[in-house]
């Protein structure tokens, strides 16, 4: 999405100018995707977090060389793959054919039900609970809020476009999306708080 690239590009530029906070925001944004990517190479949850951390630090150090020629996540994706490969090589594990994972598109072919059996039962439970909570929260939303957030997150429309479709001012679009998010966040809060202690 264009807006995606722009925000990422701005954050990257800030990091390049010395703002570490901006890197923290990028980490927050992509940590889930990075971890899910790593589950295809690594079974152990704690190990996944170690390698994820290593990959993020590598990305931070390599950022001066990033010139915006690709999307930030595409660039990060390659760093994560390389970090995973090196980790497996040094840990002398059985090599996994990695050619399948070279392209970003392969991420979308992940099983829908599928958390693979790489996860501990506890963390699987945590994921399902969160997914269910989000689903329920959205179903419970008033229609205008639900439409707004679906058009934004699923259809990837800009506020302008949503304002057109919903025939309302942009300010209303912004407010509806914000309220939808807050309603869902409220539903999630107990799960997220509990999850922090549990680990992955």
């Amino acid at each position, binding site marked *: 999405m264009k807006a995606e690239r722009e925000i990422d590009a701005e954050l990257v530029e800030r990091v390049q100018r010395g703002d570490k906070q901006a890197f923290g925001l990028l980490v927050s944004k992509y940590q889930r995707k990075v971890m899910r990517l790593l589950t295809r190479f690594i079974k152990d949850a704690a190990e996944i977090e170690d390698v994820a951390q290593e990959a993020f630090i590598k990305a931070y150090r390599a950022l001066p060389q990033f010139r915006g020629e690709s999307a930030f996540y595409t660039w990060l994706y390659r760093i994560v793959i390389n970090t995973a490969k090196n980790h497996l090589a040094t840990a002398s594990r059985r090599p996994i054919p990695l050619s399948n994972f070279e392209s970003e598109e392969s991420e979308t072919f992940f099983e829908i039900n599928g958390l693979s059996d790489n996860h501990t039962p506890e963390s699987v439970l945590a994921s399902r609970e969160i*997914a269910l909570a989000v*689903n329920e929260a959205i179903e419970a939303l008033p229609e205008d809020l639900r439409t707004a957030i679906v058009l934004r997150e699923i259809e990837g429309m800009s506020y302008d476009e949503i304002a057109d479709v919903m025939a309302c001012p942009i300010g209303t679009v912004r407010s509806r999306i914000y309220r939808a998010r807050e309603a869902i966040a409220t539903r999630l809060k107990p799960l997220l708080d509990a999850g922090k202690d549990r680990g992955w």
Partner: protein
Amino acid sequence: MRQVFEKTRPVAAALIGLSCLAWGATGHAETGEQILLKVQQAAKQNDYEGVFTYLQAGRAQSSRIAHAHQAGQHWEKLNVLDGNPQTVYRDGKTVRIAFAEERKLVIEPVSKREHFPSIGLTDLPSLSAHYEVKAENKTERVAERDCQTVNIVPRDQSRYGYRLCIDQDTRLLLRSETLNAQGQAIEQVAFAMLRLGQTLGPDALKPPASLKDWKTQTVRYAPIKLEDEGWSLPSVLGFHRVDEVKRAVGAREQVLQALLSDGLASVSVFVEPYGEQHPTQDGSAARGAVHVVGKRKGDYWLTVLGEAPLSTVQAIADAITPISGHTSSLTR
């Protein structure tokens, strides 16, 4: 999980689908060239007001522009928003540039060639000979309007390519990017904001009477032929002569200028007597898509400048030769 969202998707999808269909109906049958002609027409025929930004060599300059047309006449007013404050007033005959800080007015004749926002289209056959115009099935949003991409692909490396984004509704040119051989944008002009329809009447776009008291400089051209002045310049890499004048350039009173074009891009050749203000060595310079080459030819100094790769500008400079036994009308 998905079925929650499926309920809302069809509505949104239908709405999007409708707008795509509408575009398809108007967009498909036209050739790229036909679209370009419409772009030129649109620039003249629409009333609008907007802000556009010009980007070159890492610098940006924004301007506010308003255009009105009425009974075959047009008026245009442009305010440069960055840097040296100036206002440009254009009507059918003259361009008046008012420099606010110096209270100075420069009056130029309007070129027959182009009207903003447009491309430098001088003639279609030349353009087609040197460029392939491809209308893409792609829309983008520029200045919060839907626009269609048209690629002008050069047939050789002697000229740049262009990527245009053309308003679906009015066919106004909303964005133009100049592309180098690697397909990278080296210059860009784009509207950031555009309002159509008559917001300001023609009177609001005319220069105020007070300008008459300002220090005025008028640019005048006298038509000439290079051969009569003792210079030969054949067509080079598709760039052929479209205009030739004698005129003042800066402080120099008498300079010959020949305008060359390949149908789209333009290059100027300047010939003047060699003087101490000129460099002692031949050389070149660049800014964004513009290259300039200067060289000494006997007692004269040649300057060639335009939106073309350096090798092309150099080739044009190399092709200018004096016709022996001829004396120029240029005074030293």
